[in-house]
């Protein structure tokens, strides 16, 4: 048995002991390791097929009935395998070793990189829909979203664009540059992202002061938003401070967007940017 033990790990790579489902067949058992993808699966109406999720996949409410297999970065391979999935959806953040292990066991693993902008969100959504054969439903939702986005762009396009600084991280100060959907949220609602052309996401408070934006939006992901607001208010020279335009927003709305939640977020940003108008 000792020899068996020594040789067996190799066998798994050659095909394994688990019966492989046909690729392309209707995916019945999905493990999603990304809150975005979990939400999107429910949007597409295949929530019932989701058998495993991360701790952070909490939208919509029905997810609490689904087994938790880990958090965003650390996942329990054993737990996933015991759920007998035929498709596992991962993101770049997921432990690469776990991804490799699942693949070596013959399980289909599909990776979804973080969406760079609105178009990326839609493309990703379509790709997911293709895997669960819900292309029509996806296309409809995307159509609706695009129409709403166009409407907002048109409405706000004519107005004077306010300069906006969007803060997603404190200590160090982190913002979002061109090529992220945050950037799109601002541009589509008629604003100008002061950090649009920056090379790196790390920003300095001095630069913000130099550019003197009209509005500062704080999306508190893992830091104290109120504290940051108070820090900014310590610079009374800033336009945003004088006009009382330092806004805290609910990070839930803004992180991990689906096409649908992107539109909601966009509507929210529109209101912030053009409150007085």
């Amino acid at each position: 048995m000792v020899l068996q033990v020594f040789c067996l790990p190799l066998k798994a790579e050659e095909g394994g002991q688990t019966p492989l489902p046909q690729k392309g067949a209707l995916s019945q058992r999905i493990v999603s390791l990304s809150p975005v993808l979990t939400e999107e699966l429910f949007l597409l109406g295949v929530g019932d097929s989701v058998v495993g999720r991360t701790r952070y996949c909490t939208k919509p409410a029905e997810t609490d009935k689904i087994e938790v297999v880990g958090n965003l970065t650390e996942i329990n391979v054993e737990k996933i395998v015991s759920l007998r999935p035929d498709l596992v959806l991962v993101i770049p953040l997921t432990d690469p070793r776990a991804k490799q292990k699942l693949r070596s066991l013959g399980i289909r693993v599909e990776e979804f990189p973080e969406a760079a902008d609105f178009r990326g969100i839609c493309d990703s959504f379509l790709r997911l829909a293709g895997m669960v054969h819900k292309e029509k439903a996806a296309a409809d939702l995307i159509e609706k979203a695009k129409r709403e986005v166009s409407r907002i762009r048109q409405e706000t396009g004519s107005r004077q664009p306010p300069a906006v600084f969007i803060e997603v991280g404190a200590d160090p100060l982190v913002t979002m540059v061109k090529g992220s959907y945050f950037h799109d949220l601002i541009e589509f609602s008629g604003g100008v992202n002061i950090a649009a052309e920056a090379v790196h996401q790390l920003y300095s408070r001095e630069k913000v002061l130099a550019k003197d934006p009209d509005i500062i939006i704080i999306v508190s992901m893992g830091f104290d938003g109120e504290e940051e607001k108070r820090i900014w208010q310590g610079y009374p020279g800033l336009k945003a401070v004088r006009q009382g335009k330092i806004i805290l927003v609910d990070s839930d709305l803004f992180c991990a967007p689906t096409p649908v939640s992107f539109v909601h977020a966009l509507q929210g940003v529109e209101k912030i940017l053009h409150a007085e108008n």
Partner: protein
Amino acid sequence: MQKIKKRSLKWIFWLLVLAAAVLGAAAFALSVGSAGIPFGKVFRILFEGQKGIERSIIWDIRMPRLLLGFAIGGALSLAGVILQGMFRNPLVEPYTLGISGGAAVGVSLNILFGLHRIGVLTMPFSGFLGACLVILLLYGLNMKRRVLSLQGLLLTGVMINFIASSLIMLILALSRRESLQGIIFWIMGSLDEPNAFLTRLALGASVLFLVATYFFHSDLNALALGEEEALHLGVPVERTKRLLFLITSLLIGVSVAVSGMIGFVGLVVPHFMKKMVGCDHRILLAASFLAGGAFLVFCDTLARTVIAPMELPVGVITGILGGSLFVFVLMRDNGEGR
């Protein structure tokens, strides 16, 4: 003659006890996990070849992890015994020499420059490369006129550790979010290696080096008296130091390259086993190897079940368990007024 027989019996007893510990830890590791497979079923899968998804879990997930844990635990403990024997310092452990720091920098650079996309073996390879660079540095800086200075090795090692930590911080600061995760994962240490080749390499290397070290058992026993005394006893001290240094470095390099940083095992296990079986390296080498393997497998099993389905990094458990054990042993020593 009677005394020798008594001692041989004592040694055989200990080897049996430790072998049982290894089997016990293995049984524990194979039967416990978030998939919740009942023990009876585990037994049937192992010995009667029962099929099903649980079979995959036992053979493809738990077994490789168990084997790697045994290999790494054994390797690190063995390295610890050799180092503590050479340096005659009970606080020396595999990470004191800075070799793990070098491996960590190697892996971090690999992740920073995205080299791991080339292939799955580049990560452990860059770790091993980093380890080798440090080994060469340690050797080069401390070989003077054909004498390898042990004190110098220790000091250089500590310095390299500091420099490595700073370099890693620098790399972390320059990295993008995804890279950060990768680097931190690796540093925290994990027995979750999916590549079977690496697992077998680690296992083979550990056992091979254990056998190799046994050729030095009498040298290590003599070195316990000091380098000069050992020379008086006819031990070729310089040659022995060089070879043992090489063996230890390779043991550490391979362990760290494959599993990341798992601390305390190399410090606590040799220390503890010395108290249990004595200083004679003829029993200490094998005893520490087995004990280290069992200990790490046990810690790893705890790490993946304590807050299931979330997994703790195995280094956390070895740190807490190992650290507490160490303090306990120290307190007992002080109490006995040694």
